[in-house]
């Protein structure tokens, strides 16, 4: 055995950082600026974002770009095919479909946004509690597993059966059906983060649990939450539209893509454009969110660093 560890002189052992390092002047990059770069170069994320930007802006600008009022009936212009004065045709009451799609976007996107916000806040809170304080874990997860056992549409229908038909209740139903996936994803991430040594180090410092969660756990589970929210946004819009299509969500005469497709179903033989264009809008928006979500997942995945 060696008599002792290698003895080094003081000048050798004192770590001397280079004094005039040009790196020292450049500002170090934050995590999010690196991620931003990866998102911009990701084709899927960018194309998804473009589709969404298009739909969000036409919905917001609907009052200015809609060529016709949405709820004025005109029986002389019923079932007009696309083209001419009515870009995408008219419906059974002679209302302009293009204008209704613009306004319907507001309802559909709002439903998605509200559902994701409600589900996100509740789901992330429950997920963090479940993952960080293990003694609540089994109770929370048992309930979530029961909820997860139902397809989200079926669950939403069941909730509406309790709450009653309507736009607000549809949003709540969609939100509740989206909570379990948030809880699962967040819990899993928190479980892996809480075992990291840097969490142990701040515990050893005596930092309170609340601060640890806020400052150390939450920022590190943010990426999966962002990805999930993007994908969940698409799903929520789809489920909300499906609810309206079944007559459980938005009620006529509210312009909503799902309910427009539902009304058009009765006239599918004569006026295919009544169902096709709202359906296309739903498809494109959901596609946009899925592309964005996939892109974000690739950009935020730590394994690709």
């Amino acid at each position, binding site marked *: 055995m060696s008599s002792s560890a290698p003895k080094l002189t003081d000048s050798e052992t004192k*770590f001397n*950082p280079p004094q005039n390092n040009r790196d*020292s002047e450049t500002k*170090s990059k934050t*995590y999010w600026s690196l991620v931003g770069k990866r998102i911009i170069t990701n084709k899927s994320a960018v194309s998804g974002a473009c589709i969404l930007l298009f739909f969000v802006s036409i919905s917001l600008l609907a009052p200015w770009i809609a060529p016709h009022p949405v709820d004025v009936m005109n029986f002389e212009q019923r079932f007009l095919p696309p083209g001419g004065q009515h870009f995408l045709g008219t419906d059974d009451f002679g209302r302009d479909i293009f204008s209704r799609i613009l306004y319907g976007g507001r309802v559909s996107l709002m439903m998605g946004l509200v559902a994701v916000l409600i589900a996100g806040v509740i789901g992330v809170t429950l997920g963090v509690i479940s993952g960080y304080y293990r003694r609540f874990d089994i109770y929370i997860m048992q309930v979530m597993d029961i909820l997860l056992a139902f397809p989200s549409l079926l669950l939403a229908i069941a909730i509406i059966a309790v709450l009653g038909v309507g736009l607000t209740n549809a949003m709540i139903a969609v939100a509740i059906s989206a909570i379990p996936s948030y809880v699962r994803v967040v819990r899993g991430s928190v479980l892996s983060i809480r075992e*990291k040594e*840097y969490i*142990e180090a701040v515990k050893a410092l005596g930092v309170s649990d609340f601060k640890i969660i806020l400052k150390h756990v939450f*920022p590190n589970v943010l990426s999966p939450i962002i990805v999930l929210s993007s994908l969940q946004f698409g799903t929520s819009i789809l489920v909300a539209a499906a609810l309206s299509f079944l007559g459980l969500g938005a009620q006529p005469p509210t312009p909503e893509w799902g309910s427009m497709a539902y009304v058009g179903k009765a006239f599918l033989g004569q006026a295919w454009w009544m169902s096709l264009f709202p359906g296309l809008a739903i498809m494109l928006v959901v596609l946009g969110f899925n592309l964005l979500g996939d892109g974000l997942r690739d950009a935020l995945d730590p394994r690709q660093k």
Partner: protein
Amino acid sequence: MSEILLEVHNLKTYFPINNGFISKKKDFVKAVDGVTFKLFKGETLGIVGESGCGKSTTGRSILKLIEPTSGEIIFEGRDVLSLSKQELRRLRKQMQIVFQDPFASLNPRLRISSILEEALLTHGIGKSKKERRQKVLEILQMVGLNAFHADRYPHEFSGGQRQRIGIARAIAVGPSLIIADEPVSALDVSVQAQILNLFQSLQKELGLTYIFIAHDLSVVKHISDRVGVMYLGRMVEFADKNQMFSEPLHPYTKSLMSSVPVPNPENKKKDRIILTGDVPNPANPPLGCTFHPRCFACMEVCKTKNPRNIEVKPGHFVACHLFEPEIMGVRD
């Protein structure tokens, strides 16, 4: 050096093994099973042992990062295990830990300055932001880093530099005890020497007391004043460094010491002890002395009776039946 800083008495940390949802039967992994020692102010206690012998669990139990099952931990006259949450938080200022993996022990999302400032903020050191910043730069200087490192993120540092930051975080709150959990085993040999020397110079400067956990015997020999050898959750031998390395008594320590390679090929050791078998499963340790299935001096009594801690010489403890007075008498 005679003042006692920390006293650990019969510390036990058991981890329950889950036998499924319904089963009520409970088994335990006895990670730490009755460890007792005293730590003097200003000294360095090295704890060695192979993987899974409970070295790290001992360290973490002392800090109450893992809840010990039973035992007593007396730090500066106060029982750590009976403290309230508030009191424990205040006590954390006195005891800190340095981790093994410098890549996992720093939050990747925080700048070095925020990591260190958090330590200061938690214990109310430095009243204004400016004052805390000044303190952060001071601490960085102490561990051999520069002021411009303060605004960097952990991924911009090498392993050795990160370990310096880990040490900086530990000394930031002005502790008297630092538990170093294999702080150099993840580093290159040349960097190991730098970090070890940093530990030693900080000890001189700040009057720190260390519990230095390692599996590298030459590292332990270099840095420790006293050494404890652990095997399967128990402290089998505890002695002054020089005594431990010149005349190890416990058969396990003997075999550990003989396993260290000798750099000079001419002083070839003849009596290398090669142990057979593996470390037993800590969930189901052998009866009696846990080392007896692998011991070259195993007796009948070892298979049934757990050896007690015998003080062979002043300050030299060994847990082995070979050193019971009546057995020693028969041997001689």
